[in-house]
């Protein structure tokens, strides 16, 4: 699958969470609050982009020589990707724990798990097959932003309906939690559970998929008419 | 020598209002003024036409000669003149030439007492020749040329011969009345078949709605000193199907060592061998709610079915659908100009209200079709596979065992046309090259 840069591919229709079904664990686990989703997406984005950058720089040379990727090279690439991702995750986690502890508290165990997140690893691998380093990084950015939008959207739905609040960053006198009138007394708590999260994710994926089908049909229709 | 067997699995009990037609004797239908006789009334190649328009034909004269090893002769059922050779589409979709004969001239065979010819001194070949010449085919509906069925390869033994008198088709009673009115002739035909086949075991299978026939046939067989078992099977549809009868009666022998014939075919064998008469008429049950007087008629091949309604007292209301065969697997015809052929076991008429198509709902997985299927199939699953176009998996799950009996569609509360789709899938699969 060739990386397509920012032009809609990795962002919308090959969105990691909905279309490629990757990174579902954080997508369901940390989307109970909007703030947690925001922190998670930021974390994943940074790790993804940096991993992609490093992998594109390091691993690209081997691919351009022969045009084919041998099994041994693949193994070394994957090991390299894992090392790079783990290092990045570990360092950023330590930084966050020191300076913004509420972020790590919100993400819980899923913060260090980004090191083995299939989304990040596959993004890093895709970057090695890009034509240029810039292309590879752009694809990772698009992928990360797609993941972020997906997470925030799901978190909005789940928190508003499932808890009756919207949790954002505290700024000044604003405590950070907006209570939705009506829903906050007796929210639909089922949506705050894992099953509810899967439901929201599923419907988002279905919506994107139907958009994609409609677009494909429209393009095919246009081609047919011409 | 009489015993009842446990029934085969599955099956359904459609309403059977044949008690009226059962209680009446067979009546001779009027000779038609115009006979439309198709040249394909059997399994195999269509007969070759041996007459031309303008020719004068006698009653019982050959008008179509058997073409090839699996084929049958076709005879004119009325004396007269050949008007034309029309290419017609038969109710099952086959297209074949049909000879149209206009009535005229004198009847040579009818109206005169039948003359019995001796046959005991003939060789097997000669007897088979007589059967072939008369154009006898399986009259229970499967229409296989009988002389081919009765031809035993030299050295082969037939372990079981069954005369199938199980009348499980709902509303039809042709076999029953034939058995009741012609026991001597049926017994003679049994003797002929035993002579031809030399089977180890002979069975006369009767339906449980024919209990009164058991004593008649016990006596007839005793008086004829014929060794034949009488087996009574429950007349739950489709118990009368060949395979189910063999299964309930037989011992699971292979195809070549069991032979089964319908009692109508037996009577035609009797007429062919003993009377020298070709197959030009058959018993047809005409029934249905709009028919005033449902009964069994002896009809000349080629009679248009519209003419039969008058023989039964006429219609008591408008007609919505006319079905050739029985109500479970018969073919609906487009017009009453369709002719009676060798395979017309019955004509069932429905009023407009009965005939209307019922609302089709989605499958609710109730499993009624599975309970109804006598062949251990899962019709709902096969239906879904065929609809998805996956005929290979459907065949692996047993699609080729489907006989189109219609029990699944009968039992379906969602009125899904299961039988039609399964049969359609089967024929599509046969046309597609294997693989």
């Amino acid at each position, binding site marked *: 699958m060739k990386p397509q840069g920012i032009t809609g591919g990795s962002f919308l229709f090959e969105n990691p969470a909905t279309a490629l079904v990757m990174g579902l664990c954080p997508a369901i686990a940390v989307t109970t609050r909007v703030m947690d989703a925001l922190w998670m997406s930021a974390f994943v984005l940074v790790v993804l982009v940096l991993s992609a950058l490093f992998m594109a720089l390091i691993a690209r040379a081997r691919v351009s020589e022969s045009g084919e990727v041998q099994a041994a090279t693949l193994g070394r690439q994957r090991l390299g990707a894992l090392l790079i991702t783990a290092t990045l995750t570990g360092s950023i986690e330590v930084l966050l724990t020191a300076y913004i502890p509420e972020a790590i508290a919100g993400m819980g165990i899923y913060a260090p798990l980004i090191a083995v997140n299939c989304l990040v690893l596959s993004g890093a691998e895709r970057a090695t097959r890009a034509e240029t380093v810039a292309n590879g990084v752009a694809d990772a950015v698009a992928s990360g932003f797609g993941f972020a939008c997906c997470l925030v959207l799901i978190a909005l739905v789940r928190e508003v309906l499932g808890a009756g609040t919207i949790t954002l960053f505290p700024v000044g006198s604003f405590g950070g939690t907006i209570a939705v009138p009506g829903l906050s007394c*007796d*929210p*639909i*708590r089922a*949506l705050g559970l894992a*099953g509810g999260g899967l439901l929201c994710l599923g*419907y988002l994926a*279905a919506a994107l998929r139907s958009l994609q089908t409609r677009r494909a049909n429209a393009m095919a229709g246009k081609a047919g008419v011409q | 020598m009489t015993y009842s067997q446990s029934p085969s*699995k599955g099956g359904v009990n*459609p*309403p059977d209002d044949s008690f009226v037609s059962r209680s009446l004797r067979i009546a001779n239908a009027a000779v038609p003024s115009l006979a439309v006789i198709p040249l394909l009334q059997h399994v195999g190649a269509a007969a070759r036409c041996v007459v031309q328009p303008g020719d004068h034909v006698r009653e019982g004269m050959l008008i179509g000669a058997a073409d090839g090893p699996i084929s049958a002769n076709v005879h004119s059922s009325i004396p007269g003149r050949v008007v034309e050779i029309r*290419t*017609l*589409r038969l109710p099952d979709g086959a297209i074949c030439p049909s000879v149209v004969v206009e009535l005229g001239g004198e009847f040579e065979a009818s109206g005169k007492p039948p003359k019995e010819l001796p046959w005991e001194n003939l060789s097997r070949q000669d007897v088979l020749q007589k059967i072939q010449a008369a154009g006898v085919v399986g009259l229970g509906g499967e229409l296989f040329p009988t002389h081919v069925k009765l031809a035993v390869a030299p050295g082969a033994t037939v372990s079981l011969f069954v005369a199938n008198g199980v009348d499980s088709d*709902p509303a039809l009673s042709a076999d029953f009345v034939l058995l009741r009115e012609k026991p001597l002739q049926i017994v003679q035909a049994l003797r002929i078949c035993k002579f031809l086949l030399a089977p180890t075991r002979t069975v006369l299978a009767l339906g449980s709605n024919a209990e009164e026939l058991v004593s008649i046939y016990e006596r007839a067989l005793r008086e004829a000193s014929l060794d034949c078992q009488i087996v009574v099977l429950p007349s739950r549809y489709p118990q009368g199907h060949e*395979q*189910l009868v063999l*299964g309930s009666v037989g011992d*699971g*022998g292979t195809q070549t060592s*069991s032979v089964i014939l319908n009692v109508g075919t037996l009577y035609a064998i009797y007429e062919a061998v003993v009377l020298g008469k070709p197959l030009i008429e058959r018993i047809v049950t005409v029934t249905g709610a709009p028919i005033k007087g449902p009964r069994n008629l002896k009809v000349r091949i080629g009679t*248009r079915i*519209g003419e039969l309604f008058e023989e039964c007292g006429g219609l008591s209301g408008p*007609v*919505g*659908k006319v079905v050739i065969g029985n*109500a*479970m*697997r018969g*073919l*609906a*015809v*487009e*017009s*009453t100009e369709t*002719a009676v052929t060798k395979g017309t076991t019955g004509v069932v008429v*429905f009023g*407009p209200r009965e*005939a*209307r*198509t*019922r*609302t089709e*709902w*989605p499958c*609710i*997985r109730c*499993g009624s079709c*599975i309970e109804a299927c006598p062949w*251990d*199939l899962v019709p709902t699953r096969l239906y879904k596979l065929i609809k998805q176009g996956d005929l290979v998996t459907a065949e692996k799950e047993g699609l080729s*065992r489907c006989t*189109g009996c219609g029990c699944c*569609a*009968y039992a379906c*509360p*969602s*009125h899904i046309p299961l*039988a*039609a789709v399964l049969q359609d899938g089967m024929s599509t699969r046969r046309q597609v090259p294997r693989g």
Partner: protein
Amino acid sequence: MAERPEQGGHAALIVAPAPHVGIPGSTAGMTWSVVGALAPAAAWGIFMFGAAAVFVLVVSVGTAVLAELLCCLVSGRMTLSDGSAVLTGLVIGLLLSAGCPLYVPAAAAAFAILVVKQSFGGLGRNWMNPALAGVVFAQLSWGASMARWLPARGVAESGGLPPLDALRAAFSTTGWSGRTPLAVLASSGYTFSGLDATVVQWVNAHVLSIVGVSLRPGFFDLLVGHVTGAIGTICVPLLVLGAVALLRRGVMRWQVPVAFLSSFVVLAFLFGGLSTGQGWFAGGAGFQLFSGSLVLTAFFAATDPVTSPLGLRGRWVYGIGLGVLAFVMRFYGSLGDGIPVALVMGNCFVPLIDRATPRRQPENARKGVA
């Protein structure tokens, strides 16, 4: 080329594929008869709880119908007449208490129709029972709000909880060994109706005194359904009446509910007492049978053909499996009376059961014959 025979003197004949006859019933007819079979239990619930019950039922059925209408508009096919939306709404309403806030039945019915049924393809394509899944959804979301019980007509206010919940509350305070559930309830101060006291006294005095057995107070109330609880689940005799009517008409098959209830009763009798320290063979199976949504679920939700296995053998397995799950969720679960969750879990196993219980191979009747 090929001529068709000309028309006879009749109007155009209908040409349709065989068979030309069919059973008199239909899917829609079957669904509506189930609605009818639930009517007596619904009527009893309305009689016990009054207008509040009517509101819950109306909101539940109305939301289900509206949700179905919405989907009909989107898909272009009118499917309301098959009765399944009304049945789903009715079952949801009957499983809720009369005092629950009206957004609960509305949300449960909308979830049932829109998510569980229509998102997967409509009638016949859902793999979870829509009504029960809606109830589980509501239990997970609004468990506390759903536990607002209205007093039944003729029962004193102080008997505020349904018998099952009161029993659980009683168990949590002190251990009770070797006592029947009704005895435990009596000791914890649970009051039944005056009518019950009269009847039980009379029966004890005039009928059972000969044998030397005596009924506890509450026996009659529980039997007849004169207690508080969910609208449609309190009166077991009326539910059974409806179920028997459906069985006689051939709409329902008896294997699943019989397997379900028998395995539950056996397990409850043998092991039910273990979780509350009462010991073996002391589970109070009869009490458990008449409490909560067990009977309604067993007869009207477990028998749903769409979400139960295709073959008869599979249904036995399913029924027993449901009984086991129901036992676990009733005695060891924490989500209400546990039966809706058990059924929904059982639904998830149905495809596996279908695969594991294939139809028997053909007997020798079909062997070797063309």
